[in-house]
């Protein structure tokens, strides 16, 4: 075959255009899908552009006030309670100095300094854990939730090193012996040893039209909603109160706000 330089360049140009412009896209998609059916969201699913949570910390008087929330979360997701440093944490409490270490105010009022604050995954807009994950086991979804696919997690723990909030826990051992038998929530999986886990903003509950377990258990003291919607509960609370986020200076843009 004798091809002129001109005809070769023509073909190469058209091919490059087709591949990069998306004309060839439908062919790729048909190849990628295996099942003959269609995938859609549930009819009752709650959707948002950017899910966020607001904690009304003054409504909680004692650390015990947070107990029902933690219990609701951990039993909904089969989170074990392991004594010692290898515990699994989805929702937990810590002191002001640890939660907001950037705040150097040494004359903070006694109540604010002594109170406990609930901690969970911040579902950052710029999540460092997602950036460092070598297998894309953790990823950010369209609605702002930083989610995990435990099937893909290889347990390298880069995400734990990357997360500035300590929101991730590693399963050093099989969690099942540390759970009640049968598991607290038989409709939700457990995890296995060797994977990292964390709060999911209850993506599985949002998919069936329910708010997160902790929000449901909080009697309105945790607000949950769409940060992009000006009429949502979270936006109204943020518009009318002074709120802070954890470690704002590192630029992760957390989705959990604390009204102090």
């Amino acid at each position: 075959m004798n091809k002129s330089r001109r005809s070769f360049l023509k073909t190469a140009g058209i091919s490059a255009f087709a591949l990069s412009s998306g004309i060839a896209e439908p062919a790729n998609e048909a190849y990628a899908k295996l099942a003959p059916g269609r995938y859609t969201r549930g009819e009752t699913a709650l959707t948002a552009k950017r899910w966020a949570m607001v904690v009304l910390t003054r409504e909680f008087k004692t650390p015990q006030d947070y107990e029902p929330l933690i219990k609701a979360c951990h039993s909904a997701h089969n989170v074990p309670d392991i004594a010692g440093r290898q515990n699994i944490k989805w929702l937990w409490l810590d002191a002001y100095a640890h939660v907001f270490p950037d705040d150097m105010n040494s004359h903070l009022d006694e109540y604010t300094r002594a109170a406990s604050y609930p901690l969970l995954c911040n579902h950052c807009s710029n999540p460092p854990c997602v950036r460092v994950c070598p297998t894309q086991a953790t990823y950010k979804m369209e609605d702002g939730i930083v989610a995990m696919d435990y099937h893909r997690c290889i347990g390298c723990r880069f995400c734990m090193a990357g997360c500035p909030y300590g929101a991730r826990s590693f399963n050093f051992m099989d969690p099942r012996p540390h759970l009640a038998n049968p598991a607290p929530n038989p409709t939700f999986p457990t995890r296995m040893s060797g994977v990292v886990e964390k709060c999911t903003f209850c993506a599985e509950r949002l998919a069936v039209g329910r708010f997160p377990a902790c929000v449901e258990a909080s009697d309105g003291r945790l607000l949950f909603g769409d940060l992009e919607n000006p009429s949502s509960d979270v936006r109204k609370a943020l518009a009318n109160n002074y709120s802070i986020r954890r470690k704002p200076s590192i630029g992760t843009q957390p989705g959990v706000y604390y009204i102090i």
Partner: protein
Amino acid sequence: MYNAKAVIFGILIFVGLCASPFWASFIGRDYKSTDIVLPKNEKNCIEDADFMRSQHMRLLNEWRDEALRNENRVYTALDGKKWVISLQNTCLKCHNSYEDFCQKCHVANSVYPYCWTCHIIPKGGK
């Protein structure tokens, strides 16, 4: 060729040994059904039986990615029936006996998927 007789004889023995599983199957046992027990209350699976038999593992992978990454948690099958995407809550609702369904084929085919280290089998067993 030097020592042609011995070399050819050796090659024949070698080929015969390599193909021994093939010869063994001629004198071996007959094909045995795995005797899986199909669900009683449901006639049709998500897609037709041939597809499910050969592709269920790939379908599960696709379901996982669609549900977890794209938040598409409903699958509309070819016959129009809608299924909630969940191994634990949808598949295992009909296929409620792990020992009589999943395990029989998996053991017969020497595959040992580790679904159940995380997903909970009905009745709480492991």
